[in-house]
């Protein structure tokens, strides 16, 4: 086993203690130092459970989708027996990426360089001119590296390159109750959900900026003032962002452990359908659903086309929005991040409901998320270029009487407090200092450095 000091960049173990402080200060190098970023790709995206995809994205046998996990190109494939595997998209022979398509259906993958062929469970299937290899050639160690851990939780597929990672339910901890709530929202009817790809955005900034932001309600009235003012001027009171006007309200910020955090706005959102901004087609489609199902049944569905009031961040890379839309953070470089949105459609719902869910999923991205991205880019620039001010301050809520620890260990703060973000950074430090080496099955083990 290679020790972390060998795979770690120059920073010695323990170094991170000084960069993430108990008083809520976080050092700017967490956002700007490319060595720390490389270490994160090993220790966080290679060491934690990481969200891969929703199983409805690859519904049929042999369906696959390619993604990245901490920059590693990965194929997630559904095998003949229906099981799902995650494979490193890297030929064991001379290193080419084997698959270059975003999605598809294939029982086997063939490397485009020398033609080595792999089953979609990762095993080596065929090698051209096999006689050129001697007796030491071990087929079992010449596969596409398979993730040692993969678990599906109610349709959401998580994987880890850390064989010793905690059980998925232990990792979810008390966040599981909210995760279940989100899934229950749309788990209507026996036919489950399908998942459609939504918008994908890229910003020039570190991945943690988006992760922090989804656990931050403090920014909403200021960053999204344009949205709030436009809504008020155009559509009157009661629409998106109108529910957060003061610090004194029943909404909560929560930290669950393992990096997971929540903004719970449900106490202030009585009716998602009434509060939704006027989506294209809202009136005719709403009426059609009411006419078909009657007022009460229709309302239950229509309430699924508006803001549910949940932002749940499952660390490090999944954000559940509680109304069927979820976002995946994809780090590309220390200063570059993709955010990929997806929306779950309810297979048994009236088609108008699903169209409205899609229109709703576009809405926040269209009107408000652009401002977030702009702020992330401004932060990134200033953090890179102002070494004289090394600290970011996440102390809001600390040393006040606003935070309390529940029986389940979760910490609850006021909705505008940085409670959840602080928790995520404490967990970041734990992960970065955890002693293990990421590894894949079915390949030759690393004798030296991991990256």
């Amino acid at each position: 086993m290679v020790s972390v000091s060998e795979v770690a960049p120059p920073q010695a173990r323990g170094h991170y203690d000084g960069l993430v402080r108990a008083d809520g200060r976080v050092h700017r190098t967490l956002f700007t130092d490319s060595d720390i970023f490389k270490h994160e790709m090993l220790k966080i995206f290679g060491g934690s459970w990481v969200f891969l995809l929703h199983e409805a994205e690859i519904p049929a046998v042999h369906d696959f989708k390619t993604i990245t996990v901490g920059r590693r190109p990965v194929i997630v494939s559904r095998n003949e027996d229906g099981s799902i595997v995650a494979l490193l998209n890297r030929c064991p022979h001379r290193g080419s990426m084997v698959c270059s398509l975003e999605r598809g259906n294939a029982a086997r993958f063939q490397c485009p360089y020398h033609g080595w062929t792999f089953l979609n469970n990762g095993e080596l299937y065929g090698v051209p001119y096999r006689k050129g290899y001697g007796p030491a050639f071990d087929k079992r160690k010449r596969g596409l590296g398979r993730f040692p851990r993969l678990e599906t939780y109610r349709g959401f597929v998580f994987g880890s390159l850390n064989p010793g990672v905690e059980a998925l339910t232990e990792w979810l901890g008390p966040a599981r109750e909210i995760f279940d709530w989100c899934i229950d929202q749309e788990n209507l009817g026996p036919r489950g959900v399908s998942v459609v790809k939504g918008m994908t955005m890229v910003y020039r900034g570190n991945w943690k900026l988006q992760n922090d932001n989804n656990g931050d309600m403090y920014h909403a009235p200021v960053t999204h003032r344009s949205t709030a003012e436009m809504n008020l001027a155009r559509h009157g009171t009661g629409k998106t962002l109108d529910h957060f006007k003061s610090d004194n309200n029943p909404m909560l910020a929560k930290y669950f452990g393992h990096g997971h955090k929540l903004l719970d706005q449900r106490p202030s959102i009585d009716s998602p359908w009434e509060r939704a901004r006027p989506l294209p087609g809202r009136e005719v489609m709403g009426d059609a659903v009411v006419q078909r199902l009657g007022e009460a049944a229709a309302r239950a569905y229509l309430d699924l086309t508006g803001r549910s009031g949940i932002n749940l961040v499952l660390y490090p890379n999944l954000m559940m929005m509680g109304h069927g839309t979820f976002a995946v953070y994809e780090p590309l470089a220390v200063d570059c991040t993709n955010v990929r949105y997806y929306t779950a459609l309810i297979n048994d719902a009236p088609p108008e409901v699903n169209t409205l869910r899609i229109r709703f999923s576009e809405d926040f991205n269209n009107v408000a998320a652009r401002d977030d991205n702009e702020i992330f880019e401004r932060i990134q620039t200033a953090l890179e270029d102002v070494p004289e001010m090394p600290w970011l301050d996440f102390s809001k809520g600390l040393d006040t009487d606003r935070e309390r620890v529940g029986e389940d260990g979760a910490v609850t703060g006021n909705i505008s407090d940085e409670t959840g973000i602080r928790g995520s950074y404490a967990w970041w430090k734990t992960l970065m200092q955890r002693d293990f080496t990421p590894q894949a099955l079915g390949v030759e083990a690393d004798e030296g450095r991991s990256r």
Partner: protein
Amino acid sequence: MSENARYLNEARYAALIEGTQRARSRVTPSTFPHRDAAEAVLYLEARLLDDGRYEEWLELLTGDCLYWVPAEAKRGDPRHEACVNFDDRRRLLDRVALLRTGYLHAQTPPSRTSRTIGNVETWEVQGGALEVRSSLTLWMYRQGETTPYAGAQEHELVQVKGAWRIRQKTVRLLNSDAPLGNITFIL
């Protein structure tokens, strides 16, 4: 122009999808009906958008207009796929109102754009409407960086009180299904 919110119904979605399929499957050359009128509208639109004259641009659009920027490269059914933009007139007015609040950070300072429209082809379609297909090359400058955007445009033009107006505008970006940066301006 008034805000009738009820025109985006099942029939309109169906017509949109059908029009899209028709426009994309054409193989015969255009005979250029109303070419001058179509070019005049497209060039005026380009100029108004480049100059940030959004209110005047809105006047070029009909009361039942749609503005569609697909996020998928191949398919084309907004009932079943999320889009970069899919706006009826109401959401377009929201978008312009947002730009005018003075608090839209993503447009502080605003994007400067310069667009060139080319390869303009026209076809007469049912009901006296005009289908216009063109190529768009757009340069966007903001905060020291210039970003290129390119793609195909489909416009449906109709005559309203003797003037050609835009009833439907689709912009298919080359990189529509890739991660996109700050498109807070109108394409």
